[in-house]
């Protein structure tokens, strides 16, 4: 247990190792650790930001969905209205067409009737003339009795 040169040797060794540690050991390790700390902090912050963004996006999507639903129901409503309108229009058009067809048919019928009547009338005149000739046994002067026959025919 003597104090001797070991003391000096240990002091020198002490400064040697402290110098080595200070020069080559401590700075790189502590720098790497700080860098990692910063990286992790950044990562956590990014994750926070991302989750916040996600929340915002979800909210936006929900809003957009609501809007779309609203729009769709509007479109369906207007389509229904339009369909009803078309049906009504078709009904009115059909009715008028029917009226028109009926009217034209009526007119045709009337025309046919008149024509038949005219034909009948002229035939009645001729028949009457023939009958009268037979009865009288003589020829009737057409021109002379034309007025008479005409009058008769008109009465029919």
């Amino acid at each position, binding site marked *: 247990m003597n104090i001797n040169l*070991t003391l000096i040797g240990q*002091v020198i060794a002490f400064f040697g190792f402290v110098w080595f540690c200070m020069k080559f050991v*401590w700075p790189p390790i502590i720098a790497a650790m700080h860098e990692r700390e910063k990286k992790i902090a950044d990562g956590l912050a990014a994750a926070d930001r991302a989750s916040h963004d996600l929340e915002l996006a979800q909210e936006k999507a929900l809003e957009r969905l609501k809007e779309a639903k609203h729009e769709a129901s509007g479109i369906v409503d207007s389509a229904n209205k339009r369909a009803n309108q078309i049906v009504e229009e078709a009904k009115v058009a059909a009715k008028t067409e029917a009226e028109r067809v009926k009217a034209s048919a009526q007119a045709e019928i009337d025309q046919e009737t008149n024509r038949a009547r005219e034909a009948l009338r002229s035939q009645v005149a001729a028949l009457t003339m023939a009958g009268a000739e037979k009865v009288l046994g003589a020829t009737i002067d057409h021109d002379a009795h034309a007025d008479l026959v005409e009058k008769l025919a008109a009465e029919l």
Partner: protein
Amino acid sequence: MAGENQTVSDYIVHHLTNLTYGKLPEGYERYDGSIVADGGAWVMAHGGTEAAAMGFTAIHVDSMVWSIGLGIVFSWMFYSVAKKASSGVPSGFVNAIEMIVQFVDNTVRDTFHGRNPLIAPLSLTIFVWIFLMNLMDLVPVDLVPELLMLLGVEYQKIVPSTDPNITFGLSIGVLILILYYSIKVKGFGFAKELALNPFNHPLFIPVNLFMEIVGLLAKPFSLALRLFGNMYAGEMIFILIAALFSAGLAWMVPAGFLQIGWAIFHILVITLQAFIFMVLTIVYLSMAHEDH
């Protein structure tokens, strides 16, 4: 144990003797009766009395080799991590080293409020180096000395921190740093602090100087003696327990339990002593940086 007719006290003394290389004074009669020639002689000391005769001109080869060897182990361990240090995912050994670095860094941050790039690496070196030196205490006391005995090395103390030279070497290193930073930070203020504290009167300067210098020197003394005392006592108890093994078969079992119990307790002691040395160093250097 070495030798057949060795007594327990021989055994203990043998374990507490350093392997010493030094200069014997001229005219000294060596253990084999030979007389040292004129001008002295550099030899390996044979036993404690020869080592004592060498005085200051001697070196404890075992303490020096183990201390520097463990310092190199520390440097290599941490340097290998420092080389591949990256901000990526750490694993295994790197993790363990970084945990120690983090621990030391936190301790320094809590205690030392100035800005000095030396303090943290200094604390790390002190903590790990002293821990490794203390750790040698847990190696069975006879293992290394007996092995080296087979190789012809007579004495071996493998726990450097049980050598006051080593602990005082460390604390003198710390004292030099305290003085350096006191003068660097405070300049002339340091002399004023020594001379005018605690009694601020010119008449009291000698008293103040005496008290302050004693206070200053008490720091390295307490550092060195605390570590030395704890480690020396611990080592001594390990040696006593080891001696107990030779007291007969009946003592084997209790000695075994004592050995295990003391070793487990000692794990706490060696860590605590390394930590205390580190923290007090930080505190002393922090005081050196405080300018009033």
